[in-house]
Structure formats: C-alpha cells, structure tokens
C-alpha cells in the first residue's frame, strides 16, 4: 500500500515537472529585456568597467554583494564557533 502511494506521488510529481518544463520559454529570449539592454548599452559608460558582470555585481546590484559578503562572514563565524564548542564539550565534566 505504501509502495503504491509512493508510485502515485512520483507519477504526479513527474507530470508536474514535465508540465513545468514545457511551459519554460525558449532559452536566451527573456520576456522583458529592458533592464538587460540598458545595462549592456550603458554599463561601460556609467561604471567605466569593461567587465559588465563585475559592474552589475559591484555597482548596479551592490547591495546583493553586501549580503553575499555577510553570508561568508556568518559562515566563517559559524564554523569556528561550532568547532570550538564541540571541542570544549568533549573536555568538559
């Protein structure tokens, strides 16, 4: 019975996935490309950077990079905290 339910769920999941894949519009042709066109046309003049990706990451979407740096900081803090805490617990009473 459990196996039968699992099979049904799997079929439903596969059907939804196939349906979703068929609804994706063609690769490389976004629905609205105003922002892309603006950045490609003006990034070199506005930010002076030849690498448009870098100009997006550090200028147009700089706030996102700030969050990325914060994630890195949190990850480092967490790793050091966990490794130290588990060490201390082993030696505790």
């Amino acid at each position, binding site marked *: 019975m459990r196996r039968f339910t699992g099979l049904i769920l799997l079929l439903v999941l596969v059907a939804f996935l196939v349906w979703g894949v068929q609804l994706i519009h063609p690769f490389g042709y976004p629905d609205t490309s105003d922002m892309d066109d603006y950045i490609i046309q003006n990034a070199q003049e506005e930010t002076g950077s030849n690498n448009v990706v870098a100009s997006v990451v550090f200028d147009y979407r700089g706030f996102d990079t700030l969050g990325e*740096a914060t994630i890195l900081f949190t990850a480092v803090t967490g790793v050091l905290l966990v*490794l130290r805490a588990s060490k201390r617990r082993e030696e505790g009473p």
Partner: protein
Amino acid sequence: MLSKIVRTVTNEFMPFILVFGFYIIAHGHLTPGGGFQGGAVIVSGVVMLLVAFNHQEVKQVLRERTLSIMESTGALIFIALAFAGIGAAFFYNFLVGTPIFGRIPPTGPNPGDFWTGGVIPLMNLAVGLKVIAGLSAVVLAMAIFSSGEEVEE
C-alpha cells in the same frame, strides 16, 4: 606531512598560485573573475600547503588573530566604499571620471585599460582580502579540529 617530493613541488607552485589569484582579483573589472573567485584560488594554495605540510607549520604563518583582523578590514573597506557614495545612492560608483580609477572605456569590445572601473577594483580587493582570510580560517580550523588538537583562540 607528505613526502619530500610533494613538499618541494608545493614550495615551487605556491608563488605562481598567489600571483594567479592576485591577478584574478586585480583584473576583476576587465576579465572574468573578481574578489570571490581570486580569493578562492589563493585559498586553494593554502589548502595545498595544509595537505603537504603539517597544520602546526601553517598555523605559525597564518595566525587566526591575523586572519580575523584581515577579514574585518576587508569588510570595513567594502562597507566604507559603499557608504562613500551615499551622496547619490548607496553603492554609487563615485570614482568614475575622477583621477583615481576614473577613465571611461569606449562602449563595445575593446582591449581594456586597468585604470578604469571606479570603485569596482577597490571593492574587488576588499572582497578578495575578506574571502582569503575567511576561507583560510575555516580550512585551518577544520584541519586543526580533525587532528584532534586544541583550537587556539
């Protein structure tokens, strides 16, 4: 500690890895790459040092206190550069057109000029410093922890 061959090759390769990583960080506004990627390249060199040598020897060069100061410095430079353009907007590129990294390249494909990009190269350097220090601290802490020794403050 691995054999003498591995240690010698590591010693010979380390400067090249450092130079390549700093090249990727410094040219982040011209070629693919940037602070995160170049920092990861340099930390791969640190991992190679950890594999080839003992972590005790690496620990004497890379102290955790120095690493934490480096990471904080990188984060502070990044935030300071972001706030420096607050007159127009947060993360405004205020250095474009000024004598510092201020040249403007022609639109379209061109060979590129290092002295361009405004705050982008400086932010790449700050983020690179942050990534080098942070990931090195993580890798070093994991190496020390897996060896079963006390993690130093």
